[in-house]
Protein backbone atom coordinates (compact mmCIF):
# COMPACT_ATOMS: atom_id res chain seq x y z
CA UNK A 1 0.00 0.00 0.00
CA UNK A 2 1.59 3.22 -1.15
CA UNK A 3 0.25 6.58 -0.12
CA UNK A 4 -0.26 9.14 -2.83
CA UNK A 5 -1.28 12.15 -0.75
CA UNK A 6 -0.91 13.13 2.87
CA UNK A 7 -2.24 16.43 4.18
CA UNK A 8 -2.29 16.44 7.97
CA UNK A 9 -3.97 19.85 8.17
CA UNK A 10 -6.97 18.58 6.19
CA UNK A 11 -6.72 15.08 7.75
CA UNK A 12 -6.23 13.43 4.37
CA UNK A 13 -4.37 10.21 3.72
CA UNK A 14 -5.02 8.81 0.25
CA UNK A 15 -3.42 5.68 -1.17
CA UNK A 16 -2.61 5.30 -4.87
CA UNK A 17 -5.31 2.64 -5.06
CA UNK A 18 -8.05 4.92 -3.76
CA UNK A 19 -6.71 7.83 -5.82
CA UNK A 20 -7.05 5.59 -8.88
CA UNK A 21 -10.65 4.68 -7.98
CA UNK A 22 -11.52 8.37 -7.58
CA UNK A 23 -9.96 9.22 -10.92
CA UNK A 24 -12.06 6.75 -12.88
CA UNK A 25 -15.28 7.36 -10.92
CA UNK A 26 -18.24 8.36 -13.07
CA UNK A 27 -19.76 11.77 -12.60
CA UNK A 28 -19.63 15.45 -13.41
CA UNK A 29 -16.24 16.98 -13.92
CA UNK A 30 -15.19 20.50 -14.73
CA UNK A 31 -12.42 21.75 -16.96
CA UNK A 32 -12.14 24.83 -14.76
CA UNK A 33 -10.34 23.93 -11.56
CA UNK A 34 -10.45 26.31 -8.61
CA UNK A 35 -10.27 24.68 -5.22
CA UNK A 36 -8.53 25.47 -1.97
CA UNK A 37 -7.83 21.78 -1.37
CA UNK A 38 -4.78 20.89 -3.48
CA UNK A 39 -5.72 17.21 -3.51
CA UNK A 40 -8.95 18.09 -5.33
CA UNK A 41 -7.00 20.24 -7.78
CA UNK A 42 -4.77 17.32 -8.75
CA UNK A 43 -7.60 14.79 -8.75
CA UNK A 44 -9.63 16.92 -11.16
CA UNK A 45 -6.59 17.60 -13.29
CA UNK A 46 -5.99 13.89 -13.83
CA UNK A 47 -9.72 13.24 -14.34
CA UNK A 48 -9.84 15.87 -17.07
CA UNK A 49 -6.70 14.53 -18.55
CA UNK A 50 -7.85 10.91 -18.98
CA UNK A 51 -11.03 12.20 -20.61
CA UNK A 52 -8.83 14.05 -23.08
CA UNK A 53 -10.00 17.46 -21.80
CA UNK A 54 -7.88 20.50 -21.27
CA UNK A 55 -7.76 21.81 -17.69
CA UNK A 56 -7.88 25.48 -16.82
CA UNK A 57 -6.21 25.84 -13.44
CA UNK A 58 -7.02 28.88 -11.33
CA UNK A 59 -5.50 30.00 -8.04
CA UNK A 60 -7.91 29.24 -5.20
CA UNK A 61 -7.56 32.79 -3.90
CA UNK A 62 -8.26 34.62 -7.16
CA UNK A 63 -10.91 37.21 -6.36
CA UNK A 64 -14.00 37.68 -8.58
CA UNK A 65 -12.35 40.87 -9.79
CA UNK A 66 -9.18 39.08 -10.81
CA UNK A 67 -11.24 36.38 -12.54
CA UNK A 68 -13.26 38.95 -14.45
CA UNK A 69 -10.03 40.52 -15.66
CA UNK A 70 -9.24 37.08 -17.07
CA UNK A 71 -12.69 37.00 -18.68
CA UNK A 72 -13.84 34.16 -16.47
CA UNK A 73 -17.28 34.39 -14.88
CA UNK A 74 -19.66 31.97 -13.16
CA UNK A 75 -21.15 31.24 -16.61
CA UNK A 76 -17.77 30.31 -18.02
CA UNK A 77 -17.40 27.86 -15.15
CA UNK A 78 -20.55 25.98 -15.98
CA UNK A 79 -19.49 25.78 -19.62
CA UNK A 80 -16.52 23.74 -18.43
CA UNK A 81 -18.70 20.94 -17.09
CA UNK A 82 -18.87 17.52 -18.69
CA UNK A 83 -19.90 14.02 -17.70
CA UNK A 84 -17.16 11.49 -17.24
CA UNK A 85 -18.12 7.85 -17.69
CA UNK A 86 -17.05 4.42 -18.91
CA UNK A 87 -13.45 4.85 -17.95
CA UNK A 88 -13.17 1.71 -15.85
CA UNK A 89 -13.03 -0.25 -19.09
CA UNK A 90 -10.16 1.71 -20.47
CA UNK A 91 -8.12 2.07 -17.28
CA UNK A 92 -7.54 -1.05 -15.23
CA UNK A 93 -4.78 0.26 -13.01
CA UNK A 94 -2.93 3.40 -12.07
CA UNK A 95 -0.13 2.37 -14.45
CA UNK A 96 -2.61 2.57 -17.33
CA UNK A 97 -3.22 6.20 -16.41
CA UNK A 98 0.48 7.04 -16.36
CA UNK A 99 0.90 5.26 -19.68
CA UNK A 100 -1.98 7.25 -21.18
CA UNK A 101 -0.49 10.57 -20.02
CA UNK A 102 2.92 9.73 -21.43
CA UNK A 103 1.45 8.50 -24.74
CA UNK A 104 -0.63 11.64 -25.16
CA UNK A 105 1.72 14.23 -23.78
CA UNK A 106 1.87 16.08 -27.08
CA UNK A 107 -1.91 16.42 -27.19
CA UNK A 108 -2.88 17.02 -23.55
CA UNK A 109 -2.96 20.64 -22.52
CA UNK A 110 -3.34 22.75 -19.44
CA UNK A 111 -3.94 26.49 -18.96
CA UNK A 112 -2.18 28.21 -16.11
CA UNK A 113 -2.10 31.86 -15.17
CA UNK A 114 0.97 33.80 -14.27
CA UNK A 115 1.57 37.41 -13.28
CA UNK A 116 1.45 39.26 -16.55
CA UNK A 117 3.59 42.19 -17.54
CA UNK A 118 0.64 44.22 -18.74
CA UNK A 119 -1.35 44.70 -15.57
CA UNK A 120 -3.19 41.41 -15.26
CA UNK A 121 -2.27 37.75 -15.02
CA UNK A 122 -1.57 36.17 -18.39
CA UNK A 123 -2.79 32.83 -19.61
CA UNK A 124 -0.25 30.28 -20.72
CA UNK A 125 -1.28 27.09 -22.45
CA UNK A 126 1.18 24.31 -21.79
CA UNK A 127 1.51 20.85 -23.26
CA UNK A 128 1.99 18.00 -20.81
CA UNK A 129 5.17 17.27 -22.69
CA UNK A 130 6.62 20.54 -21.42
CA UNK A 131 5.20 20.19 -17.92
CA UNK A 132 6.79 16.78 -17.53
CA UNK A 133 10.01 17.51 -19.41
CA UNK A 134 12.12 17.66 -16.25
CA UNK A 135 10.56 14.53 -14.72
CA UNK A 136 12.98 11.70 -14.05
CA UNK A 137 11.73 8.17 -13.52
CA UNK A 138 14.28 5.86 -11.95
CA UNK A 139 14.36 2.85 -9.68
CA UNK A 140 16.46 4.75 -7.19
CA UNK A 141 13.67 7.33 -6.84
CA UNK A 142 10.86 4.91 -6.11
CA UNK A 143 10.98 5.30 -2.33
CA UNK A 144 11.12 9.10 -2.34
CA UNK A 145 8.68 11.02 -0.15
CA UNK A 146 8.05 14.57 -1.31
CA UNK A 147 7.45 17.57 0.88
CA UNK A 148 5.16 19.66 -1.30
CA UNK A 149 5.95 23.31 -0.66
CA UNK A 150 4.55 25.23 -3.63
CA UNK A 151 1.25 26.61 -4.70
CA UNK A 152 -0.30 23.62 -6.57
CA UNK A 153 -1.58 25.83 -9.39
CA UNK A 154 1.81 27.19 -10.38
CA UNK A 155 4.35 25.68 -12.70
CA UNK A 156 6.81 24.65 -9.97
CA UNK A 157 4.05 22.89 -8.00
CA UNK A 158 2.83 21.04 -11.08
CA UNK A 159 6.36 19.88 -11.81
CA UNK A 160 6.83 18.47 -8.31
CA UNK A 161 3.44 16.78 -8.61
CA UNK A 162 4.34 15.01 -11.85
CA UNK A 163 7.80 14.08 -10.60
CA UNK A 164 6.21 12.33 -7.61
CA UNK A 165 3.29 10.87 -9.57
CA UNK A 166 5.40 9.26 -12.31
CA UNK A 167 7.55 7.56 -9.67
CA UNK A 168 4.51 6.64 -7.55
CA UNK A 169 5.98 8.59 -4.64
CA UNK A 170 4.13 9.85 -1.62
CA UNK A 171 3.42 13.57 -1.48
CA UNK A 172 3.15 15.27 1.90
CA UNK A 173 1.50 18.66 1.55
CA UNK A 174 3.39 21.13 3.72
CA UNK A 175 2.52 24.44 2.08
CA UNK A 176 0.53 27.11 3.95
CA UNK A 177 0.83 25.74 7.44
CA UNK A 178 2.82 26.53 10.58
CA UNK A 179 6.53 25.77 10.28
CA UNK A 180 6.61 23.83 13.55
CA UNK A 181 4.01 21.52 12.01
CA UNK A 182 6.03 21.27 8.81
CA UNK A 183 8.94 20.04 10.93
CA UNK A 184 6.68 17.41 12.53
CA UNK A 185 5.63 16.27 9.05
CA UNK A 186 9.27 15.87 8.07
CA UNK A 187 9.90 13.65 11.08
CA UNK A 188 6.57 11.80 11.06
CA UNK A 189 6.45 10.95 7.37
CA UNK A 190 10.19 10.64 6.65
CA UNK A 191 10.21 13.22 3.90
CA UNK A 192 13.22 12.66 1.63
CA UNK A 193 12.83 15.29 -1.08
CA UNK A 194 11.68 18.87 -1.15
CA UNK A 195 11.62 21.64 -3.69
CA UNK A 196 10.82 25.10 -2.35
CA UNK A 197 11.69 28.77 -2.57
CA UNK A 198 14.67 30.05 -0.55
CA UNK A 199 12.17 32.15 1.43
CA UNK A 200 10.22 29.05 2.46
CA UNK A 201 13.45 27.46 3.66
CA UNK A 202 14.45 30.58 5.57
CA UNK A 203 11.16 30.44 7.43
CA UNK A 204 11.41 26.71 8.06
CA UNK A 205 14.98 26.56 9.39
CA UNK A 206 14.30 28.03 12.86
CA UNK A 207 11.61 25.36 13.44
CA UNK A 208 13.94 22.44 12.74
CA UNK A 209 15.06 21.04 16.06
CA UNK A 210 17.27 18.17 14.96
CA UNK A 211 19.27 17.29 11.87
CA UNK A 212 16.85 15.84 9.30
CA UNK A 213 19.28 13.23 8.07
CA UNK A 214 16.68 11.34 5.96
CA UNK A 215 16.34 14.22 3.54
CA UNK A 216 18.27 13.29 0.39
CA UNK A 217 17.56 16.16 -1.91
CA UNK A 218 16.68 19.84 -1.65
CA UNK A 219 15.94 21.96 -4.67
CA UNK A 220 15.53 25.71 -4.61
CA UNK A 221 13.80 27.77 -7.25
CA UNK A 222 11.73 30.85 -7.88
CA UNK A 223 14.22 33.40 -6.65
CA UNK A 224 17.93 33.87 -6.22
CA UNK A 225 19.50 31.45 -3.76
CA UNK A 226 20.56 33.14 -0.53
CA UNK A 227 24.02 31.83 0.39
CA UNK A 228 23.52 33.07 3.97
CA UNK A 229 21.47 29.97 4.76
CA UNK A 230 24.09 27.53 3.48
CA UNK A 231 25.77 26.94 6.84
CA UNK A 232 22.47 26.31 8.59
CA UNK A 233 21.38 23.96 5.77
CA UNK A 234 24.47 21.79 6.24
CA UNK A 235 23.67 21.49 9.94
CA UNK A 236 19.96 20.72 9.62
CA UNK A 237 19.90 18.76 6.36
CA UNK A 238 23.32 17.13 6.58
CA UNK A 239 22.43 14.25 4.26
CA UNK A 240 20.93 16.32 1.45
CA UNK A 241 22.34 17.38 -1.89
CA UNK A 242 21.36 20.96 -2.60
CA UNK A 243 20.51 22.18 -6.07
CA UNK A 244 19.36 25.50 -7.42
CA UNK A 245 17.14 25.65 -10.44
CA UNK A 246 16.37 28.41 -12.84
CA UNK A 247 12.79 28.13 -13.96
CA UNK A 248 10.55 30.44 -15.90
CA UNK A 249 6.77 30.49 -15.70
CA UNK A 250 6.74 30.20 -19.46
CA UNK A 251 8.92 27.10 -19.75
CA UNK A 252 9.25 25.58 -16.30
CA UNK A 253 12.49 24.38 -14.81
CA UNK A 254 15.37 24.75 -17.24
CA UNK A 255 18.78 24.99 -15.63
CA UNK A 256 20.33 23.37 -12.57
CA UNK A 257 23.30 24.46 -10.51
CA UNK A 258 25.00 23.35 -7.34
CA UNK A 259 26.02 26.83 -6.32
CA UNK A 260 24.99 30.12 -7.83
CA UNK A 261 26.69 29.49 -11.20
CA UNK A 262 24.72 27.93 -14.02
CA UNK A 263 25.64 26.60 -17.42
CA UNK A 264 23.53 25.64 -20.40
CA UNK A 265 23.53 21.82 -20.65
CA UNK A 266 24.37 20.24 -24.00
CA UNK A 267 20.81 19.06 -24.59
CA UNK A 268 19.61 22.66 -24.43
CA UNK A 269 22.24 24.38 -26.56
CA UNK A 270 19.75 24.60 -29.46
CA UNK A 271 16.91 25.98 -27.36
CA UNK A 272 18.43 28.20 -24.67
CA UNK A 273 20.88 30.97 -25.42
CA UNK A 274 22.26 34.17 -24.02
CA UNK A 275 22.24 37.32 -26.07
CA UNK A 276 23.42 40.68 -24.77
CA UNK A 277 23.58 39.08 -21.30
CA UNK A 278 19.87 38.23 -21.43
CA UNK A 279 18.62 34.66 -21.29
CA UNK A 280 16.50 33.71 -24.30
CA UNK A 281 14.32 30.61 -24.64
CA UNK A 282 13.32 29.05 -27.96
CA UNK A 283 9.58 29.05 -28.60
CA UNK A 284 9.64 25.25 -28.87
CA UNK A 285 10.00 25.05 -25.08
CA UNK A 286 7.23 27.52 -24.37
CA UNK A 287 3.55 27.14 -24.00
CA UNK A 288 1.38 29.36 -26.11
CA UNK A 289 0.16 32.73 -25.01
CA UNK A 290 -0.90 35.93 -26.71
CA UNK A 291 1.33 37.94 -24.45
CA UNK A 292 4.70 36.44 -25.28
CA UNK A 293 7.25 38.95 -26.37
CA UNK A 294 8.94 36.93 -29.11
CA UNK A 295 11.94 38.03 -31.06
CA UNK A 296 11.80 35.74 -34.08
CA UNK A 297 11.69 32.24 -32.62
CA UNK A 298 13.06 33.36 -29.26
CA UNK A 299 11.41 34.50 -26.06
CA UNK A 300 13.18 37.21 -24.11
CA UNK A 301 12.98 36.28 -20.43
CA UNK A 302 14.13 39.65 -19.09
CA UNK A 303 16.56 37.77 -16.84
CA UNK A 304 20.03 39.26 -16.97
CA UNK A 305 23.14 37.17 -16.37
CA UNK A 306 26.76 37.85 -15.63
CA UNK A 307 29.48 35.51 -16.94
CA UNK A 308 32.17 34.08 -14.70
CA UNK A 309 34.06 32.44 -17.57
CA UNK A 310 33.12 31.36 -21.09
CA UNK A 311 30.38 29.00 -19.98
CA UNK A 312 29.40 29.62 -16.38
CA UNK A 313 27.12 32.47 -15.46
CA UNK A 314 24.99 33.71 -12.59
CA UNK A 315 21.73 35.60 -12.56
CA UNK A 316 21.98 39.26 -11.79
CA UNK A 317 18.62 40.92 -11.94
CA UNK A 318 15.54 41.28 -14.02
CA UNK A 319 15.08 43.80 -16.74
CA UNK A 320 11.36 43.98 -16.14
CA UNK A 321 9.62 45.74 -13.30
CA UNK A 322 8.08 42.59 -11.85
CA UNK A 323 8.61 42.33 -8.11
CA UNK A 324 9.79 38.91 -6.93
CA UNK A 325 8.24 38.41 -3.50
CA UNK A 326 9.58 35.18 -2.06
CA UNK A 327 9.36 33.51 -5.47
CA UNK A 328 6.00 35.00 -6.50
CA UNK A 329 6.01 37.65 -9.19
CA UNK A 330 3.95 40.75 -8.58
CA UNK A 331 3.15 43.19 -11.30
CA UNK A 332 3.24 46.72 -9.84
CA UNK A 333 0.85 48.09 -12.48
CA UNK A 334 -1.86 45.67 -11.42
CA UNK A 335 -1.63 46.84 -7.80
CA UNK A 336 -1.39 50.51 -8.77
CA UNK A 337 -4.50 50.26 -10.95
CA UNK A 338 -6.53 49.06 -7.99
CA UNK A 339 -5.21 51.60 -5.48
CA UNK A 340 -5.70 54.48 -7.94
CA UNK A 341 -9.45 53.82 -7.96
CA UNK A 342 -9.76 54.18 -4.20
CA UNK A 343 -11.48 57.27 -2.76
CA UNK A 344 -9.00 59.78 -1.39
CA UNK A 345 -6.06 58.51 -3.46
CA UNK A 346 -4.74 61.03 -5.97
CA UNK A 347 -1.76 59.08 -7.21
CA UNK A 348 0.21 56.00 -6.28
CA UNK A 349 3.46 54.29 -7.11
CA UNK A 350 4.03 50.62 -6.24
CA UNK A 351 7.51 49.17 -6.17
CA UNK A 352 9.66 46.45 -4.64
CA UNK A 353 11.93 47.17 -1.74
CA UNK A 354 14.92 44.92 -0.98
CA UNK A 355 14.28 42.65 1.93
CA UNK A 356 16.45 39.98 3.50
CA UNK A 357 13.49 37.75 4.38
CA UNK A 358 11.59 37.61 1.08
CA UNK A 359 13.96 39.15 -1.43
CA UNK A 360 11.55 41.99 -2.09
CA UNK A 361 8.44 43.31 -0.46
CA UNK A 362 5.70 45.35 -2.07
CA UNK A 363 5.62 49.00 -1.03
CA UNK A 364 3.05 51.65 -1.99
CA UNK A 365 3.69 55.37 -1.87
CA UNK A 366 0.46 57.31 -2.04
CA UNK A 367 -0.32 60.94 -2.69
CA UNK A 368 -3.67 61.51 -1.00
CA UNK A 369 -6.29 64.16 -1.38
CA UNK A 370 -5.46 66.95 1.10
CA UNK A 371 -8.92 66.86 2.67
CA UNK A 372 -8.72 63.18 3.51
CA UNK A 373 -7.52 61.67 6.75
CA UNK A 374 -4.37 59.52 6.48
CA UNK A 375 -5.63 56.78 8.72
CA UNK A 376 -8.93 56.48 6.90
CA UNK A 377 -7.31 56.32 3.48
CA UNK A 378 -4.85 53.69 4.70
CA UNK A 379 -7.68 51.57 6.12
CA UNK A 380 -9.57 51.86 2.86
CA UNK A 381 -6.51 50.90 0.81
CA UNK A 382 -5.88 47.86 2.99
CA UNK A 383 -9.47 46.71 2.92
CA UNK A 384 -9.93 47.11 -0.81
CA UNK A 385 -6.58 45.68 -1.88
CA UNK A 386 -7.03 42.61 0.30
CA UNK A 387 -10.46 41.95 -1.16
CA UNK A 388 -9.30 42.35 -4.74
CA UNK A 389 -5.79 40.94 -4.82
CA UNK A 390 -4.05 37.72 -3.88
CA UNK A 391 -2.21 37.86 -0.58
CA UNK A 392 1.33 38.03 -1.95
CA UNK A 393 0.45 41.06 -4.10
CA UNK A 394 -0.64 43.24 -1.17
CA UNK A 395 1.52 46.22 -0.28
CA UNK A 396 3.10 45.57 3.13
CA UNK A 397 4.23 49.14 3.65
CA UNK A 398 1.98 52.05 2.81
CA UNK A 399 3.45 55.52 3.03
CA UNK A 400 1.94 58.89 2.30
CA UNK A 401 4.12 61.30 0.39
CA UNK A 402 3.66 64.77 -1.09
CA UNK A 403 5.24 63.74 -4.34
CA UNK A 404 7.17 60.78 -5.68
CA UNK A 405 10.89 60.86 -5.26
CA UNK A 406 11.39 57.16 -5.92
CA UNK A 407 11.03 55.21 -9.14
CA UNK A 408 9.52 51.75 -9.30
CA UNK A 409 12.92 50.15 -8.96
CA UNK A 410 13.23 51.93 -5.62
CA UNK A 411 15.86 54.32 -6.90
CA UNK A 412 15.80 58.04 -6.32
CA UNK A 413 14.06 59.69 -9.22
CA UNK A 414 16.21 62.08 -11.20
CA UNK A 415 14.47 65.41 -11.24
Amino acid sequence: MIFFWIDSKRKLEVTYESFFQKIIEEGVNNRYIKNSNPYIVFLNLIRNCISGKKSIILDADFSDEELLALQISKNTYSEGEFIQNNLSEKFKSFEDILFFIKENNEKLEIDIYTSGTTGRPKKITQLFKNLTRAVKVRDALKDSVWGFAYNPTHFAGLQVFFQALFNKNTIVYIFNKGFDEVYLDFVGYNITNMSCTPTFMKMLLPSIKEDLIDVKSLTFGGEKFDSKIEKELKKKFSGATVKNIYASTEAGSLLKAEGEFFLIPNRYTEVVKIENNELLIHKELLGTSESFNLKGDWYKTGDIVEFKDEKMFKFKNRKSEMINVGGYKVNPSEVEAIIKEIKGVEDVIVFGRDNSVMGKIVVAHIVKNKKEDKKEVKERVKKITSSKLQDYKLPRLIKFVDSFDLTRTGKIKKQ
Partner: protein
Amino acid sequence: MIKAVTEIIKEIIEDNGEKLTVEITKEIQLRDLGLSSFDLATLTVKIEDEFDVDIFEDGLVSTIGEIIEVLEANV
Protein backbone atom coordinates in the same frame (compact mmCIF):
# COMPACT_ATOMS: atom_id res chain seq x y z
CA MET B 1 15.11 49.10 22.55
CA ILE B 2 12.69 46.28 23.40
CA LYS B 3 9.94 48.88 23.73
CA ALA B 4 10.49 50.15 20.20
CA VAL B 5 10.56 46.60 18.80
CA THR B 6 7.39 45.75 20.75
CA GLU B 7 5.66 48.80 19.25
CA ILE B 8 6.56 47.69 15.73
CA ILE B 9 5.37 44.12 16.34
CA LYS B 10 2.14 45.43 17.85
CA GLU B 11 1.56 47.60 14.79
CA ILE B 12 2.06 44.66 12.42
CA ILE B 13 -0.26 42.37 14.37
CA GLU B 14 -2.91 45.08 14.62
CA ASP B 15 -2.59 45.78 10.91
CA ASN B 16 -3.61 42.15 10.39
CA GLY B 17 -6.77 42.86 12.37
CA GLU B 18 -5.55 40.95 15.43
CA LYS B 19 -4.37 41.85 18.92
CA LEU B 20 -1.03 41.26 20.59
CA THR B 21 -1.95 38.96 23.46
CA VAL B 22 1.43 38.04 24.94
CA GLU B 23 3.98 40.17 26.69
CA ILE B 24 7.06 40.67 24.55
CA THR B 25 10.18 39.43 26.32
CA LYS B 26 13.61 38.54 25.01
CA GLU B 27 12.80 34.82 25.17
CA ILE B 28 9.77 35.03 22.88
CA GLN B 29 10.24 33.18 19.57
CA LEU B 30 9.12 35.12 16.51
CA ARG B 31 7.22 32.12 15.22
CA ASP B 32 5.27 31.91 18.50
CA LEU B 33 3.80 35.31 17.69
CA GLY B 34 2.12 33.75 14.66
CA LEU B 35 4.00 36.02 12.25
CA SER B 36 3.90 34.96 8.61
CA SER B 37 6.85 35.39 6.26
CA PHE B 38 5.17 38.59 5.01
CA ASP B 39 4.95 39.87 8.60
CA LEU B 40 8.63 39.10 9.20
CA ALA B 41 9.53 40.90 6.00
CA THR B 42 7.48 43.89 7.14
CA LEU B 43 9.14 43.74 10.54
CA THR B 44 12.60 43.91 8.99
CA VAL B 45 11.82 46.95 6.85
CA LYS B 46 10.12 48.77 9.73
CA ILE B 47 13.11 48.13 11.98
CA GLU B 48 15.37 49.15 9.11
CA ASP B 49 13.50 52.45 8.81
CA GLU B 50 13.81 53.14 12.50
CA PHE B 51 17.33 51.88 13.30
CA ASP B 52 18.94 51.61 9.87
CA VAL B 53 19.83 47.98 10.62
CA ASP B 54 18.78 44.93 8.63
CA ILE B 55 18.19 42.35 11.38
CA PHE B 56 18.25 39.40 8.96
CA GLU B 57 21.31 40.52 7.06
CA ASP B 58 23.72 38.02 8.58
CA GLY B 59 21.36 35.09 8.62
CA LEU B 60 18.55 33.93 10.77
CA VAL B 61 17.07 35.55 13.82
CA SER B 62 14.50 33.58 15.79
CA THR B 63 13.92 35.31 19.13
CA ILE B 64 13.20 38.88 20.21
CA GLY B 65 16.44 38.72 22.23
CA GLU B 66 18.40 38.03 19.04
CA ILE B 67 16.82 41.04 17.34
CA ILE B 68 17.87 43.23 20.28
CA GLU B 69 21.40 41.79 20.14
CA VAL B 70 21.74 42.61 16.45
CA LEU B 71 20.38 46.10 17.07
CA GLU B 72 22.64 46.77 20.03
CA ALA B 73 25.67 45.61 18.09
CA ASN B 74 24.89 47.94 15.21
CA VAL B 75 23.20 51.06 16.51
